[in-house]
């Protein structure tokens, strides 16, 4: 347990450091696809710095919840991200919190964000909160179904063990896993407010969901919430990487060389996944809000199907 602490700490710092870069890379790639030059990949860091140096404007009737929420949202998202193995498995806190906890921590963050959206009492905040929660009612069970499938395979709900199982098993070909992967990708797109569910770059009133909730935020509060969004994107991509492309990830206490290999492999995986995400985003148009439940419902059904197939087809461990 004690031996795993440095890995855990390094991991917590790493996700924080890399998250803005990941968003910078996706924005850059997207700009290139759209034949723009795009800002530097380091622009998100500059944005965050700019925001925390600015004066914070708070609406007159905002309560303490409004001012506290950004920190709690960021904290829960960060803790969840720190629980996903990145370059090495065997995290100190892995034994404290499994995949269900990660999903639920993100749920806590969303709950607080939706409340913050309602706090000032404007119509846009309400529209954002209401729609975000509606998406979540399908995305969250879909995510849990993916979790069911994975843990039935690995005989464990811990992400570290699942990842380790996937490495040991080599290339597992299974219908359930394929269904789970598709479901997880759909959930990741929905949860991170990407096209076709939501557009992170929009400020067109009637299409905003995530942006509408945080419309009133400014200055340091906005910086913290933006950082949480960066971390959340990183979390989902890391999760896909550690479960479905686990190769290269160092095992617990494997030594400096493996750790370096793991780190490089992790960054490469992130880059590839970000590229694929942007490719998908550029190729598709945004959906109407009430088409989104169909989209997320597909994820839920695929996840459920994957789980039922496993339940029926094999004797579990």
């Amino acid at each position: 347990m004690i031996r795993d602490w440095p890995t855990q700490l390094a991991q917590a710092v790493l996700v924080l450091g890399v998250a803005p870069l990941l968003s910078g890379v996706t924005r850059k790639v997207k700009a290139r696809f759209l034949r723009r030059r795009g800002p530097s990949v380091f622009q998100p860091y500059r944005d965050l710095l700019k925001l925390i140096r600015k004066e914070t404007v708070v609406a007159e009737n905002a309560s303490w919840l409004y001012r506290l929420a950004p920190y709690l949202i960021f904290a829960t998202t960060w803790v969840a991200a720190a629980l996903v193995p990145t370059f090495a498995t065997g995290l100190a806190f892995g034994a404290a919190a499994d995949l269900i906890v990660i999903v639920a921590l993100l749920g806590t963050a969303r709950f607080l964000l939706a409340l913050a959206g309602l706090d000032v009492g404007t119509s846009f905040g309400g529209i954002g909160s209401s729609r975000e929660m509606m998406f979540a009612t399908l995305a969250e069970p879909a995510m849990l179904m993916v979790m069911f499938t994975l843990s039935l395979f690995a005989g464990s709900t811990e992400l570290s063990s699942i990842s380790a199982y996937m490495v040991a098993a080599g290339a597992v070909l299974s219908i359930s896993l394929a269904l789970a992967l598709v479901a997880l990708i759909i959930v990741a797109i929905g949860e991170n407010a990407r096209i076709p569910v939501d557009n992170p770059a929009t400020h067109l009133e009637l299409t905003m969901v995530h942006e509408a909730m945080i419309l009133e935020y400014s200055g340091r509060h906005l910086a913290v919430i933006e950082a949480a969004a960066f971390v959340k994107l990183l979390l989902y991509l890391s999760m896909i990487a550690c479960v479905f492309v686990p190769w290269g990830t160092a095992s617990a206490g494997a030594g400096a060389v493996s750790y370096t290999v793991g780190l490089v492999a992790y960054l490469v995986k992130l880059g590839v996944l970000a590229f694929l995400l942007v490719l998908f985003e550029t190729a598709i148009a945004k959906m109407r809000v009430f088409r989104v439940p169909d989209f997320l419902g597909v994820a839920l059904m695929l996840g459920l199907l994957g789980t039922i197939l496993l339940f029926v087809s094999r004797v579990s461990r």
Partner: protein
Amino acid sequence: MALASPVVLNQLAASGVALLLSLAALAILMVRGPRTSQLIYGACALVCAALAAVGLCALFASGAAIGVVELPVGLPLGRTLLGLDPLSAAFAAIINIAAAIVSGYAVGYGTHASEPRRVVPFYPAFIAGMNLVLLAQDAFSFLVGWEVMSLASWALVVSDHQSAENRRAGLIYLVMATAGALTLLFAFGLLAGHGEGYAFSEMRRAANSGVGAVVLLLALIGAGSKAGLVPLHAWLPLAHPAAPSHVSALMSGVMTKVAVYGFIRIVFDLAGPPAWWWSIPVLVVAALTAFLGVLYALMEHDLKRLLAYHTVENIGIIFIGLGLALAFRANGLGAAAALALIAGIFHVLNHSLFKSLLFLGSGAVLNATGERDMEHLGGLIHRMPVTAVAFLGGCIAISALPPFNGFVSEWLTFQAILLSPQLPQWISRLLVPAVGATLACSAALAATCFVKAFGMTFLGRPRTSAAGGARETDRWSRSAMLIFAALCLLAGVVPGVVMDALAPVSKLLLGTQLAPQSTQPWLRIVPIAPARSAYNGLLVFAMIVTAAATTALIVRRFASHALRRSAAWDCGFPDASTATQYTAGSFAQPIRRVFGSVVFRARERVEMPKPGDTGMAKAQVEIHDTLWEAFYAPVIRIVEAITERLNRVQFLTIRNYLTLVFAALVLLLIVVGTGR
């Protein structure tokens, strides 16, 4: 150690019930105004605290024989046997902890009652009835306690008898409670078999699995209607909100738990070994209850009724745990059965804590504003800060979000679901993942529902002047709510303690128990094996606090400290009218479209005036209570038709009446004659 001996504990518990009953009698004589009701409520709080302590002692001291106490009074046919075995001790501890805190709240809140004599005498009797059900070791005392509980709570429901709505709620409640008690009577009758006797110990000896299936069905109807299983829930969202708020808290948070106890006692303890298919109806009904309960809650704008519908959802979650335990037990999977049972009972504790808290909060809001309708509230976080903090804690807990307690029991239930591929029956294997998906979906819907409940009530701007002029509630009520919120957090942070405390229950009912959690390092819980799954609430809580504190420190160190208050931005068009805020109805609209169009046959109609016409546009929403229409409306129609026919009997001539009496006499003689 004389105090901890089972007989002494049982005597203490029985005298606690007697004390509560005498408090009820005292209240009839004594209560005139606020001071005297405060005294009675205070005494109730003390007695309940003592009963909770007795329950805990009995739970920890278990292992020895339960030492049943026989009372000299009793019904002609049966004996009155009272005693606490681990199952009833666990439930006694759970319900009396909640009842004690609620009584403390009532010391402050109960003074606002306009007619205290309609409320105060029934309150101790209600608690006494619930305790009697738990103490009973024979069917007669059980049913007597059950009826005392039902009738006292009925009297509390109709305490505000001026409103027609409350009288209707009271009538429906009375009918359902009577029907439920009748089915339980049949269940006990079947269990007693041929002249074996009505003591539980004798029923256990007589247990023959031939009647087990019918008993399960009867228990599901009898206890299930009291607990609020769909479709027998219809009375619950009418009756629970109609009572004064501290009584609503007891009915929703505590009385439904007594019903769950009744189900466990009959099905797990008395009915003998289960057949594999017993779990199927339980799981189907439970999953439907969880899902429909939360959907109904989302459509509701009345704060107390929303909470009552949520009780229906949580009862579904509890019964999912119990159904899984039945399935595992029938297949001889002891450890998995223990896990599922503990998950269910853990949720019983959790629900008693956070649902009581939320009802107390709604009472505080009702008292401060005179409003239950969320469309008329808003902005109370500024006017009632302490209530808001406690209510927020309850909302997070009931939405099953870490680090609060609701999450732990759902986590345990999910772990139990993940063990169910071990079940050999293919129908269970198909059903259980679907139940899991339903559970996950209801958890997410519950979070939506409580964003709505908290957001519309406490956040935003006040929608009416009543909400704008609200005042924080009294000291007693505030402390009671804060204690509940603290207990919610505590049970979420150190769940291992609760699981260990409940271990004797699974030992009693299933013969197995989970590995003790107290031996685990760092207070984590490990239901099956560390490699499989583990959860550490304390560490998660500590991590969140540390991460938030670190972030706040860093931001404080490097960020600009300038902060300006200004008008809301709202994309440049801030509107001074509070009517432009999102309402509870508009918040739920996406859910209504996605789920409601099928479940409630919800239809929306927008009528726009013609171009150039300055008339108002109209938006109408039509929602059907499909369950009421499918199950209750036909029954009511049939009953009405029959009574219409029978009504004629009232206006016969004396000759016809005499003929009827004679016919009845002949019929009875024939029946008696053939019976010989």
